């Protein structure tokens, strides 16, 4: 770890910061990195860090989780997904509970594993429940193409993928949280580049810095934000992010997916913020292959994940935090997911309480 720079960055922040600064990160990896390093303990009192809608599992709506469960319950379906989704509460159950009851749910570490599984078990309908942002979407796109190239017809994708910039617009439009600037996601931006964030500065006068994931990367981004005299989008994570992004990955996504409406926990339906399989790949879409019917969704009782994801409520201020809701016995997705902000704050709290 490059912790040698930390003291200098901290004193720089102390020197340059003002009161009442609120910076939001919108990436689960940042959420975890900040809490794990205990960065809040080092910051000057005037700077507050809040988490936004950056945890892919957490922003998945209960209705979408119910659709995943409904698919998994079909006898011919083998549902594959990333581990984090398995424990998240849908309306009346979790995939983990369904699996224990005999439903065929399998955790994979890459969508390509799901394609391999489909090839190995041709009598099963292997569905991959795809969640995540521009980081995972290209990998899923590649898996769809690979399945097609190999003629694996029993593989399909329920795409719950979302794209990053639009929820930031939605947040700013709501205006509930005063946001002085964004710590923008490093991994997502490796793919997207910077252009998609320019509206933050030009339309909303809110700056942003794309940050890496080491503690000093985050502090450096904060220093850059504090120093901005005019709102701008800057790259702090120069070793990985280029202004134009990863053109190959962008093209892959644009080929396989098309923008669609997506339902965000806490923000509701945001038009064009999702990725559905494009027209020529519709036969790989699970929702084309199977009719998915769900009952009226039921939200986890007393859970304030929606407010937490909008940065309106600090996780520690949720009435259930640490009492009824802990990582061992979670109530809402923000405590279940390893990238959720409630989980991060609980897992990495100080011995004497939350920081």
């Amino acid at each position, binding site marked *: *770890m490059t*912790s040698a720079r*930390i003291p200098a960055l901290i004193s720089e922040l102390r020197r340059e910061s003002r009161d009442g600064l609120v910076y939001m990160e919108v990436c689960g990896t940042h959420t*975890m990195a900040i*809490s*794990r*390093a*205990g*960065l809040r*303990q*080092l910051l000057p009192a005037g700077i507050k860090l809040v988490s936004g809608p950056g945890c892919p599992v957490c922003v998945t709506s209960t209705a979408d989780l119910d659709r995943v469960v409904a698919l998994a319950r079909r006898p011919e379906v083998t549902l594959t997904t990333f*581990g984090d989704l398995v*424990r998240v509460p849908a309306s009346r159950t979790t995939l983990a509970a369904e699996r224990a009851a005999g439903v065929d749910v399998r955790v994979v*570490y*890459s969508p390509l*594993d799901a394609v391999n599984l489909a090839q190995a078990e041709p009598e099963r309908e292997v569905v991959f429940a795809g969640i995540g942002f521009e980081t995972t979407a290209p990998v899923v796109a590649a898996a769809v193409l690979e399945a097609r190239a190999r003629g694996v017809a029993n593989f399909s994708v329920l795409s719950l993928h979302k794209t990053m910039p639009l929820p930031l617009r939605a947040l700013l439009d709501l205006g509930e949280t005063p946001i002085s600037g964004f710590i923008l996601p490093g991994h997502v931006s490796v793919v997207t580049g910077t252009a998609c964030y320019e509206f933050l500065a030009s339309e909303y006068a809110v700056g942003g810095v794309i940050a890496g994931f080491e*503690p000093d990367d985050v502090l450096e981004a904060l220093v850059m934000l504090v120093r901005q005299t005019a709102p701008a989008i800057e790259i702090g994570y120069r070793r990985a992010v280029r202004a134009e992004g990863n053109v190959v990955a962008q093209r892959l996504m644009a080929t396989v997916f098309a923008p669609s409406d997506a339902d965000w926990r806490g923000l509701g339906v945001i038009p064009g913020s999702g990725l559905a399989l494009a027209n020529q790949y519709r036969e790989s879409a699970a929702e084309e292959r199977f009719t998915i019917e769900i009952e009226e969704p039921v939200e986890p009782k007393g859970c304030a994940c929606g407010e937490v994801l909008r940065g309106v409520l600090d996780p520690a201020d949720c009435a259930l935090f640490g009492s009824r809701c802990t*990582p*061992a016995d979670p109530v809402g997705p923000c405590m279940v997911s*390893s990238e959720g902000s409630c989980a991060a704050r609980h*897992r*990495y*709290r*100080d*011995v*004497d309480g939350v920081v």
Partner: protein
Amino acid sequence: MTAADRILLGHGSGGKLYRDLVRDVFVAAFANPVLDRLDDAASLATSGRIALTTDSHVVQPWRFAGGDIGLLAVAGTVNDLATAAARPLALAAAFIIEEGFFMDDLRAICASMARTAAEAGVAIVTGDTKVVERGAADGIFITTTGVGEIVVDHELGAQSVRDDDAVILSGSIGDHAMAVLAARDEFHFTTTVESDCAPLWGLAEAAIAAARDTAPAAAARDTAPASAAALRFLRDPTRGGLTTVLAELAESAALGVEIEERAIPVSAAVRSICDLLGYEPLSLANEGKMVFVVAPEKADAVVAALRAHPLGRHAARIGAITAAHPGRVALRTVLGTRRVLDMPVGELLPRIC
């Protein structure tokens, strides 16, 4: 491929095939006077307090960089005995084998068990084998039971731990879990990390000797070996890792534990896999490490003794017991910030030990 290359259901039947298997594989590998008698129970002579432990091993795959299920099965039980300061006296091994398992693989596993037992200075004196139908077990499961003779006369354990005691770790953490993870190949990564799996009685013995009170006054008082009461607690951080050992210790001792992230050895390779996959090194399983809690005045001597042992070269004092925040473990990060270490929940790695 002939039937003779594989384990058959008949090998578990108790008939001739079974006898041949016992003689040609197990007795051949573990040869010792007690086992050679092939009695249903082994008789042992002991004096003093004994420790008894048992552990089942189900690691998948059974072979991984730096070890295999045989090494694990023997080392795991020897190490459990070592946590009670017990010199291993004898081991028993029970095998559940899936029909169709390769005979050569079973031989390799037994050879590894024999080698590890010899290294630990203990014999495998009795055993049992069951063969189950294909699909009823995954390859091979081994349960080892160990008896040991406790070499200290004070009570070891969380209840003996005091405010201000030193916490010592015998070496780098996370290697075993990452070696097995790489061998499972689910994440498709390759690494140079090897499992640390090893029998630790020798290492524990070195720590016990270093903890003995050798002040001239005490030595002059009587001829009995000096007390090792400065050694309070030993535990091998296997499943759940260092975090679990310390969290359980804090809870049962009703004291706090304060550790320094900077002092905890983690290899660069393990750290980079953890960064990539989002694992916490402190919560990863080890099979060749020991945590010691020692009275502060003996801490340096114990660290020096551990470092002089080949399995403890990277031993370090990683923290201390404190009366503050009883029941909780605090980690002082490399940045100087502080956070709690909770027992890990949920996604622990499957079947790594």
